[in-house]
């Protein structure tokens, strides 16, 4: 068939798409964020609500996983007590790289209203945080927005970024 006879429009536009490996990988990564559910207190209810039919978190390609081995985003929803801090860190360490953290709600960000001996005053004292989500409790829309911000962040960073500078150990 001669070149001018091919109907490009019928096959969805141009037959060739040009891209970079970075963009291709990041496109895949950012559209299949699997969340490690980390519901610790009331914020977790909002997190569950975002997963429900009304807000439908899954349409962003996100799936809540209960295993750190298969998750790449840790969404810390709620109050981290000091007793619990080592477990948070352990689960974070068990997640495969690359990984991101969303700190959801005032409690996870700064200790919130629990200005006491038993609460970790900000989860960034134990793990690096990518997105701080303000509010007490943040609505599901906010979490969805945070996921979209995270997608944007992932798309703009190099595929094989080094994250060692963000970690203590």
């Amino acid at each position, binding site marked *: 068939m001669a070149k001018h006879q091919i109907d490009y429009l019928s096959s969805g536009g141009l037959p060739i798409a040009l891209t970079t490996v970075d963009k291709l990988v990041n496109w895949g990564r950012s559209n299949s964020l699997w969340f490690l559910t980390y519901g610790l207190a009331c914020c977790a209810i909002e997190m569950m609500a975002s997963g429900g039919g009304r807000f439908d978190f899954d349409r962003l390609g996100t799936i809540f996983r209960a295993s750190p081995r298969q998750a790449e985003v840790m969404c810390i929803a709620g109050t981290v007590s*000091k007793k619990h801090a080592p477990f948070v860190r352990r689960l974070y360490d068990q997640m495969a790289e690359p990984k991101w953290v969303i700190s959801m709600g005032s409690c996870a960000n*700064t200790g919130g209203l629990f200005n006491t001996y*038993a609460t970790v005053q900000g989860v960034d*004292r134990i793990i690096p945080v990518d997105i701080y989500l303000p509010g007490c409790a943040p609505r599901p829309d906010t979490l969805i927005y945070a996921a979209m911000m995270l997608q944007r962040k992932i798309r703009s960073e190099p595929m094989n970024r080094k994250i060692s500078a963000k970690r203590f150990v």
Partner: protein
Amino acid sequence: MFRPYTPKGDVQKKPYHTDRFYVPKEIAQEPITDEIVKDDLEKLERAIGDTKSFFMRNEAIVYVPAPKNKEALALLRSLGYEQLMELSAIDYLATRGELEVFYELLSAVKNRRLRLKVVIKEKEAIESVADMWRSANWSERECYDMFGVIFNNHPRLSRILMPDDWNGHPLLRSYPLQGDEFARWYEVDKIYGKEFREKIGEENRDPARVDRNDTRNFARLGYEVGVGEAPKDEITPIKYVEKRSIVLYDDFDPQKQKVLDKRK
């Protein structure tokens, strides 16, 4: 219909809080009037001896000597006070140098409540009643965790709310609300080790404080460098020059000013 008028001219002058550290008056101790409770308490007195009982706001309270707490509770249980509703302690160490451990009992058959109290010194041991009431098992663990009261013959007297290696008993009045040195650094010491204290820094307990160096070790705010440049140690000073998106002119940037050597 109107509400009765009250003059509000001096509302601002009246203090809302007269005394911040108001100490309420002790509630009066009244003699026991209830026949059923009185009967039971007399039996208790005969069996144990050295008890002291009274009413406070229609609640029967009885003090027994600390070594006989289990004996007294067993007797009350046989008298129909079959449920242990609550077990905890009150810290009177600062005023009287002692702790009070209380047991709230309920008798469903007699429709009465009774509070049994024992007075102990700090770190003094008393007998556990975990084999009599299942609810006492974790209540006693909690009491030990929070007040440091030791219960003899408890099946497993370990901390229940706080981590096992916690230092101090948080519900004692001498314990600071925001924690002691140990509490402030607990998670950092445990996860990273003491040598990282300086790197991570103190807990920020002021929610209104904004310090760009706070999260330096993660985000390195103010230490940004250009693409491909090596990380640097000096912080970039904050310049309050904002770029406005107006095509025709740029804002004056003092960093970029240059004195010409020669007139053009």
